[in-house]
């Protein structure tokens, strides 16, 4: 619990990337829950996942540092000169997961569309009742 309003300003700027990723996450979440069309839900899902990915990437950002590859004539071999590669590696995996999920979802959507002829959620619910 921090006190004093004077902190809000700099905190807000310093945490801008958290605001950004959280906003993306929430936009995605809202779209998934409230979207009227299944494809929009799917797109919202991707936005949400990008929110998580930007969170990790922003976390590992470091000014004045480079990718951790030791080469001749490169930066000195100290931790300060290099970026932590782990969040990037994790997010590569997360991106692969997200692409696979999207792929499976699209395959499902194609089958739904072939059977019911619509991806509009309200129409789909009507046809499911038949």
């Amino acid at each position: 619990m921090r006190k004093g309003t004077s902190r809000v300003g700099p905190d807000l700027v310093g945490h801008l990337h958290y605001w950004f990723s959280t906003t993306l996450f929430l936009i995605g979440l809202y779209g998934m829950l409230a979207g009227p069309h299944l494809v929009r839900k799917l797109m919202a899902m991707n936005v949400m996942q990008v929110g998580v990915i930007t969170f990790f990437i922003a976390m590992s950002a470091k000014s004045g540092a480079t990718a951790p590859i030791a080469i001749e004539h490169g930066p000195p071999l100290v931790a300060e000169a290099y970026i932590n590669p782990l969040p990037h590696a994790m997010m590569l995996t997360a991106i692969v997961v997200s692409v696979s999920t999207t792929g499976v979802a699209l395959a499902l959507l194609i089958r739904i569309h072939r059977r019911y002829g619509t991806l509009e959620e309200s129409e789909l619910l009507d046809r499911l009742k038949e």
Partner: protein
Amino acid sequence: MTSHLPILIVVIPLVAAIMTPLVARMNVRAAQVLDTGVCLTVFLCATTALLRVLDTGPWHYELGGWAPPWGIEYVIDPLSAGMAMLVSFVATLVSIYADAQRRQLPEGRSGLFDSLFLLLVAGLLGIVVAGDMFNLYVFLEVASLAAYGLLSTGGTRAVVATFRYLLLGTIAASFYLLGVGYLYAMTGTLNMADLTTHVPTIVGTAPFGVAVTFIVLGLAIKMAVFPLHAWQPDAYAYAPAAVTGFMAAVMSKVSAYALFRILYFVLRAEGAAAQIISVMGWVAIAGAVAGSVMALAQTDVRRMLAYSSVSQMGFILFGFSLLNPDALTGALLHIVNHAVMKGCLFLAVGVIVWRTRAVTVNGFSGMSQRLPWTSAVFTLAALSMIGLPPTAGFFSKWYLLRGAVDASAWAFVATLVFSSLLSAVYFFRLIERMYFFTPSDEGVRRARLFEVPIGMLGPVVTLGAAVLLLGLLSHPIVVTVVRAALPEL
């Protein structure tokens, strides 16, 4: 090769999952045998691992020879070995049972069915042995993706239900990943053992509370805990019986395992974790009652069983929320018992649906004359769900009750009794119809010993026997395995 057991438990089904489509291309039958053989091998591996860790303590395996906390680590302790045994046991039986499901698939697709099934098994086993938080996420998604594929094989209604599940499952995974991100940002480590040593320094901070909330929320969706269970009934009702049987039995249980592992072993139930655990208790009570009430209102038997799972999940969650050994013993025992009984019930219903096309409660009238063996096993498992001795369900509920009384959690004692009574109502409604009503349609068929193919009946009967055995042997199991699996509180 025994020194590599922790990795073999995951890699064997993973490699087999890749190889199955190729084998199936040459010979479909061989692929099915491979499928069952792999599950059985993993079961033997898990048993060996369990015996060893009971003897010598936790077993750490470093992938690629990189030492943790930098490298990826797989850990087997009595808890994870027990879960691996449970998963592979049910998987073996389901892979035999799935024969009828495979025949309904279009030509050339059955290899892919086997492949997805093994992928699901590999993912679940991976969750069980994973020693770091991110690996757990990856395996959670591997298992989920395979599950989406399997669930959607049940026709177009199943596809719609699967899509819903996919959206919710992805929300769950994103919440979990975000929670892990918070923990990583604070501690700089993902390794579970290493994270535990960092917990005391961050336990009082606000981000810690956020992280725990996100992780618990994510896993709770995967577990289908009461207010977050909406995906489950539809997904279970339309999917093929073998898939439903397997998923209902172990998939939500493995998520429960992950929750247990993280809350008690990684976060040590401290600070915000303890607060969330106490909130979990009330959610569990609501779920145990609401699940039973909703189960009572269903006419489709599979939906009824799905809602009954929601209520049983409440019991497990409540066992987690009472911080005493008896309740935790009860919860862990209930994970095993409920997996076996619910698997048995779903597979038995699958047999009935396959043979008679009856899915409603009314359609079950006179089933004991048409399918006597299946009905008998169904009844046994149903009695166990209600919690009558000497079946397995009684003992786990007994431990839960003792734990609740110890903790003076009278609200839960009342809930346990009330919810069990409700389950008695909806199960006896079915049992009464099966045994004392005359069949509603067509004449009574002559009851034969092999009423359905032995490949379907065998697994159902085996699970039924397991329900009895787990009950009769519950004391030795608790003393040797469950007590060893409990965290030090």
